[in-house]
């Protein structure tokens, strides 16, 4: 049973009606094309008005939609070749991060990204996309490797945040994140960050420092999850909706703050409604930015990335 949110119900009802009508017309061999077309047109309008005016909380729901394509889907959808590489060479292999090398159009690239599951079983395996220090360190190892071979890095962000647990603290979650952020600012290769779902706090930033930060239309990126923010500020995690409203975490808000360079459009109704379309929209944008960055020298890449980071919230 696909997940349907309350605000999507009118669309789904109308779509069901259209499907019924089509079936009916076929069975009875009736000519209902005009009626169907009118209804389809109305569904399109309805979607446009609903998905064009989503509240931040509704965007969070879409960004967390279980059927929303994740890092692995994009890797399969936009790359012709991919070899997954494992482990941080220190402690283990964090399943919340996938990394490897592959072919994207005519570029060989390194990819790292958060992995979320589509169901509970998968989610337990990948810890709901919440990284441990070894995940950060795996990503760092692969990014340094990319620098060695002059490969661009593409980072897909989709995590509620870094994991909060005993092992994560014992193995230096804070140190791992800090190191990633610092080293990413110095790598002499193009780095493109794409926020494809939810970006949460340090766990997102650990693979989130780039020459470009692109964000899908309904993705969110926040200093902490709205639940955590509500719990910190109002001591009440159930006020997450209110927090979402004031945190300015949508792609549109972050474009205004110059944190995000470009908003990648999604198929009408969100990426989960038309995966192939979502892949091609993302591919187009990624390709364009990658080509721009490949024209730059290593020194230019580092200095322009630094300038970008340095100017955020500059006074």
């Amino acid at each position, binding site marked *: 049973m696909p997940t349907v949110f309350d605000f999507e119900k009118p669309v789904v009802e109308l779509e069901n009606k259209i499907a019924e009508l089509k079936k009916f017309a076929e069975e009875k061999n009736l000519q209902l094309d005009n009626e169907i077309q009118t209804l389809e047109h109305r569904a399109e309008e309805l979607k446009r008005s609903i998905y064009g005016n989503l509240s931040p909380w509704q965007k969070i729901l879409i960004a967390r939609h279980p059927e929303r394509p994740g890092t692995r889907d994009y890797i399969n959808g936009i790359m012709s070749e991919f070899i997954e590489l494992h482990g941080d060479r220190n402690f283990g292999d964090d399943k919340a991060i996938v990394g490897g090398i592959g072919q994207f159009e005519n570029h060989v690239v390194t990819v790292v990204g958060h992995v979320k599951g589509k169901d509970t079983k998968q989610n337990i395996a990948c810890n709901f996309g919440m990284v441990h220090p070894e995940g950060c360190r795996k990503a760092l190892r692969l990014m340094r490797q990319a620098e060695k071979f002059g490969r661009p890095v593409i980072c897909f962000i989709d995590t509620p945040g870094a994991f909060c647990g005993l092992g994560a603290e014992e193995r*230096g979650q804070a140190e791992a994140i800090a190191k990633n952020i610092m080293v990413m600012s110095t790598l002499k290769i193009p780095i493109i960050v794409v926020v494809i779902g939810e970006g949460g706090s340090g766990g997102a930033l650990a693979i989130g420092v780039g020459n470009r930060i692109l964000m899908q239309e309904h993705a969110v990126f926040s200093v902490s999850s709205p639940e955590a923010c509500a*719990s910190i500020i109002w001591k009440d995690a159930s006020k997450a909706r209110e927090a979402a409203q004031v945190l300015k975490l949508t792609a549109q808000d972050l474009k205004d703050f110059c944190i995000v360079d470009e908003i990648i459009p999604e198929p009408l109704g969100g990426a989960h409604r038309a995966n192939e379309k979502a892949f091609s929209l993302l591919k187009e944008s990624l390709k364009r930015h990658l080509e721009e960055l490949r024209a730059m020298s290593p020194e230019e890449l580092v200095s322009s990335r630094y300038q970008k980071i340095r100017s955020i*919230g500059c006074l």
Partner: protein
Amino acid sequence: MVFELFRRSKYFTVKQDTKRDIPEGLWVKCPECGEILFTKDLDRNFKVCEKCGYHFRLSSSERLHITVDPGSMQEFDAELAPTDPLNFPNYQEKIKAAQESTGLKEAVVTCEAAIGGYPAVVAVMDANFIMGSMGTVVGEKITRAVERALEKRIPLIIFCASGGARMQEGMLSLMQMAKTSAALAKLHEAGILYVSVLTDPTMGGVSASFGFLGDIILAEPGALIGFAGPRVIEQTIRQKLPEGFQRAEFLLDHGFIDKVVPRPALKDMLTKILTLHQGA
């Protein structure tokens, strides 16, 4: 049974009496061992409990007072004050209240000063100011301090005290982690010493950026240091945390800091480190 009951009521009367006898501000009770400490003695002992060694939190001015050579401090960027970029509910009131109670404009003080005769750029965070949280201005002041150390080619010392990123400035706060860390990368490339001193508490966005990027990382005894707060971890894993978890000594055991230095010895330690890096 009867004895227990009797003892409890007696304890209660005693407690009430002591309370009445203590004039405001002259005495404080150690939150760790319960010892009643004379404020003047406590101040003389660097605000460390004489009985159990508990380190009371210091304000930024107290920290500077015991750290830098008298008369050597020259503050910069003192005028930088936070704005409210997100129009976050009640944030302006919160800033105003913090400014009034601390006399500071923001949660960090940055200066050039001498320590044991050696010039350095010193940044001191103040947990009394919205829990030392890092918003745009804290990130900017830290970054400028790094840039000043780089420009003057003198060591940088940061005293961290922070609950993490400031929620009320949203993503702008998070990106300060990137800004400060990227600036530190330049300092490292230039071969300039950066000593990070982690004090109670150093958490979240501050530990996960400049806090853990020191060439040498010192910590005060008992300081809470980590990424996620203990309450959040307990809620996530649904079990009680072991004794001493995320304390400075725990981090030393796990290899994440270089030394736990009691506050009275801290200035000497910093001076020694600066001496050994002279001419580096």
